[in-house]
């Protein structure tokens, strides 16, 4: 006798299960419910529909004729209201009661909507069905859209709309796109490809509120205050199995509807398939396992033996024209090693994760041609010890040559600027070489490239090497560290000329040989990026030395020293009392007066830092940045206030300088002093920047040192007014920030570029001085603040132990 099968949900999985049933000639009378007012279509293909490459008819998998030919009773646009498992009936919304022998859940999943304020406004949609797709297709070049979610679905929605000319911004909460499938480096390349398509991408962005006007969405507000205006807001942050009906019917439900290996739920007559199920703790979103499940469902319904097995999964995707692949495990576990390959010229990135001589994970971007081979190695657990050296190059390159260290420079386009001082591009250098300039001197003479500050020398030499090949002998240059062949100067030029604004961008474009740098290069890169792109780059505390990460100086026993600022060395009885109280309260063992005219509290416990900062903040004091590669102090003498020899208000100038410069990060520490007369009580002539006040104005000199080297400053300029002295000092600080190598004090930088080169920019060229001042102020708009107050308020918890097991272990 023909049995009755009721299917709830016409999705890709249930559709495929029905195909298998009918192909095998199973004797079932099928009724198919679907909440959407249509039958089965290929949901994956909604993206090509959105971008206009396909239309709806192309993606329908089963049409009316097919249903009719197979005797399927279609109840589209109808939901199932209730299930009575004892009577084995389902009740439709209109009250019809249908008997079943077998019931199949294919209820799929629901898009997850973040419950932000305003999420119920008109114009806030998910990306799930044809209706959503049609809403997006109705937009054009006059519209703006925000997409929340930088996963596959969100990016496809963004690219589809961008192809229609819509102004699209993607907001992603994580640090890089598609973080579940891709690592940082591949995420960076994907982001770059999207930006090239005109899409704005904001990572590490927290949505705060959806703003509306007259009940319709108007903008998305981020928690940093940024407002992103939009006509439509698409939320594509993930899916949740739709288990509501199953739960109501009393089936076992966890994240999804629990099924066994035969796809049977906790009720032997009820099966489930697709995104709504949970099997062995896992839920499913990719199509391959869903099709495997559909096969098993059909077998079970026909009384045949079928077992669903979760397989090793790989994701090979084309996201908006970019090839990417990930497989296996690229996280979690001990004993693993990375093999990384980057080809900046082709935008290719490959990373293999190896454990016990077996490849267990792979991430590929750009060129995925060998992905099947690598996936095979993962699945078969092939021993790769024999081919380890050449493994990363793929099957065709076994025994191939390693990556050319000059690849990054070879990859630069002709219009890439090499020499920033003189505005010389790679093409001009190549032309000069073609015209007969075959060494650095000749290039300098004919193009002026590297003839000014000289920081681009390494790059010019590499252009020579790439162009001339063996005819050019490269002088030995010191690379930053073992992670790269490039020098500090090379990398700085690349960051500027190629607009590299993130650490993964630098690693990729400069061909880093490690996955995430080391303790030598990361602090340098962090400084270069924040100095060159203050508004775009997010400071990375994890790439800073502990002192700058915790805003205190680590001591040999793991305690810290705390130094509050004393502007210009001036303090008050109230501040001194607060310092004394703090020293008592936190049992500070040593209180010392520093050489920079302030007070150092030594021996503070790491856990106490936020509390002592709060106490000092409450007394009006802020961080003295005594731990920073940045502005330390401006030492002063008392000047005209009290001294009978003083010529200017040196204390006042010192305070003004410290207030305007504080918080700025520099290649190395920056110490200043202002002396009120040439007797120089503030010892200004051995500081990085010193001011000597004279009757006729202010002598600003730079490049002093009183450490391992002792040097006297050299006069940069004498200016008549205090304002101009401040401007000159800010400008020279900015010039130093933009050009010096990380960990070079001003005197070392000056030895490389020459005082004249600095004078040309600060003293002779007033436009350049103004431009430097402006860039300094832009940077200070981000960095001139008190980190103590911020950490005490927002990050105090991170200074405490993660857990205390003192009692636990003692049991």
């Amino acid at each position: 006798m023909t049995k009755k099968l009721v299917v709830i949900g016409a999705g890709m999985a249930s559709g495929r299960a029905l195909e298998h049933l009918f192909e095998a000639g199973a004797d079932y009378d099928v009724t198919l419910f679907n909440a959407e007012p249509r039958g089965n279509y290929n949901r994956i293909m909604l993206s090509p529909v959105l971008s206009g490459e396909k239309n709806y008819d192309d993606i329908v998998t089963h049409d009316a004729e097919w249903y009719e030919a197979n005797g399927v009773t279609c109840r589209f646009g109808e939901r199932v209201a209730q299930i009575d498992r004892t009577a084995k009936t389902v009740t439709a919304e209109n009250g019809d009661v249908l008997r079943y022998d077998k019931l199949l859940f294919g209820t799929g999943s629901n898009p997850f909507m973040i419950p932000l304020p305003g999420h119920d406004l008109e114009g806030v949609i998910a990306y799930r069905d044809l209706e959503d797709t049609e809403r997006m297709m109705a937009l054009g070049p006059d519209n703006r859209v925000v997409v929340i979610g930088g996963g596959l679905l969100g990016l496809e929605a963004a690219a589809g709309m961008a192809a229609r000319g819509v102004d699209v911004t993607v907001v992603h909460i994580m640090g890089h796109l598609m973080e579940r499938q891709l690592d940082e480096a591949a995420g960076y390349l994907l982001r770059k490809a999207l930006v090239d398509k005109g899409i704005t991408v904001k990572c590490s962005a927290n949505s705060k509120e959806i703003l509306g006007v007259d009940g319709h969405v108007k903008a998305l507000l981020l928690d940093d205050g940024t407002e992103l205006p939009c006509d439509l807001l698409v939320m594509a942050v993930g899916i949740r199995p739709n288990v509501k009906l199953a739960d109501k019917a009393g089936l076992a439900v966890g994240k999804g509807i629990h099924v066994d290996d035969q796809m049977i739920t906790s009720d032997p007559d009820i099966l489930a398939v697709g995104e709504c199920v949970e099997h062995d703790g896992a839920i499913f979103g990719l199509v391959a396992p869903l099709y495997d499940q559909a096969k098993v469902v059909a077998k079970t319904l026909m009384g045949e033996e079928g077992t669903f097995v979760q397989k090793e999964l790989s994701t090979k995707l084309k996201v908006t024209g970019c090839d990417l692949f990930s497989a296996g495990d690229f996280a979690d576990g001990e004993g693993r090693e990375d093999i990384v390959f980057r080809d900046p010229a082709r935008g290719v990135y490959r990373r293999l994760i190896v454990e016990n001589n077996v490849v267990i994970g792979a991430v590929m971007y750009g060129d995925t041609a060998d992905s099947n081979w690598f996936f095979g190695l993962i699945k078969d657990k092939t021993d790769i010890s024999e081919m380890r050296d050449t493994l990363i190059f793929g099957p065709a390159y076994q025994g191939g040559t390693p990556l050319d260290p000059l690849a990054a420079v070879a990859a630069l386009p002709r219009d890439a600027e090499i020499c920033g001082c003189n505005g010389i591009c790679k093409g001009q250098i190549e032309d000069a070489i073609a015209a007969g300039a075959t060494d650095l001197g000749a290039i300098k003479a004919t193009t002026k490239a590297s003839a000014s500050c000289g920081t681009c020398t390494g790059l010019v030499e590499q252009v020579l090497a790439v162009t001339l090949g063996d005819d050019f002998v490269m002088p030995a240059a010191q690379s930053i560290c073992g992670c790269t062949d490039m020098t500090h100067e090379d990398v700085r030029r690349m960051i500027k000329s190629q607009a590299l604004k993130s650490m993964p961008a630098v690693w990729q474009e400069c061909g880093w040989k490690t996955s995430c740098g080391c303790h030598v290069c990361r602090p340098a890169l962090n400084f270069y990026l924040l100095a060159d792109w203050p508004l775009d780059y997010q400071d990375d505390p994890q790439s800073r030395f502990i002192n700058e990460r915790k805003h205190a100086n680590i001591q040999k026993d793991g305690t810290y020293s705390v130094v509050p600022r004393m502007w210009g060395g001036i303090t008050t009885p109230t501040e001194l009392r607060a310092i004394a109280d703090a020293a008592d309260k936190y049992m500070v063992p040593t209180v010392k007066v520093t050489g920079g005219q302030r007070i150092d509290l030594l021996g503070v416990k790491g856990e106490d830092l936020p509390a002592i900062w709060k106490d000092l903040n409450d007394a009006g004091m802020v961080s003295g940045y005594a731990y920073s590669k940045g502005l330390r102090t401006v030492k002063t003498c008392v000047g005209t206030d009290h001294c009978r020899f003083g010529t200017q208000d040196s204390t006042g100038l010192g305070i003004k300088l410290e207030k305007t410069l504080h918080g700025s990060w520099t290649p190395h520490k920056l110490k200043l002093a202002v002396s009120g007369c040439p007797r120089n009580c503030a010892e200004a002539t051995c500081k990085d920047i010193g001011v000597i006040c004279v009757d006729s104005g202010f002598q600003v000199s730079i490049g002093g040192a009183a450490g391992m080297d002792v040097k006297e400053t050299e006069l940069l300029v004498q200016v008549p007014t205090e304002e101009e002295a401040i401007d000159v000092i800010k400008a020279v600080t900015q010039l130093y920030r933009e050009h010096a190598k990380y960990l070079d004090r001003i005197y070392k930088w000056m030895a490389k570029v020459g005082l004249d080169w600095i004078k040309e920019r600060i003293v002779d060229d007033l436009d350049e001085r103004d431009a430097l001042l402006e860039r300094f102020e832009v940077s200070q708009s981000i960095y001139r603040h008190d980190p103590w107050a911020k950490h005490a308020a927002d990050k105090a918890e991170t200074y405490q132990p993660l857990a205390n097991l003192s009692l636990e272990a003692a049991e």
Partner: protein
Amino acid sequence: MSNWIDIAAIDDIPQRGARVVKTSEGCVAVFRTGDDEVFALNNACPHKAGPLAEGIVHGKSVTCPLHNWVISLETGEAQGSDEGRVATYPARVENGRILLDRSFLRARVAA
């Protein structure tokens, strides 16, 4: 009874960062790498007992903040020409939670 102690959420430690767990015998440093692996090591460099939890984490290594010794998070061995080893403890992540092995922490007390 399970031997794994639930310590904290993995997100309580930043990527390429570390936090300490206090025990009666001093601190254990729990590290999180850029790939979200976790490792637990004695929080004392074999050189001069520097607090490794405050070091810069890169790949599967940490650099001691005091004198730049580089320590493998997997083996606890000092890298390069330096010689020494830090005790390591089993650690894993499950459902976004960091778990440490109770029996190893006990062994540490006994040692």
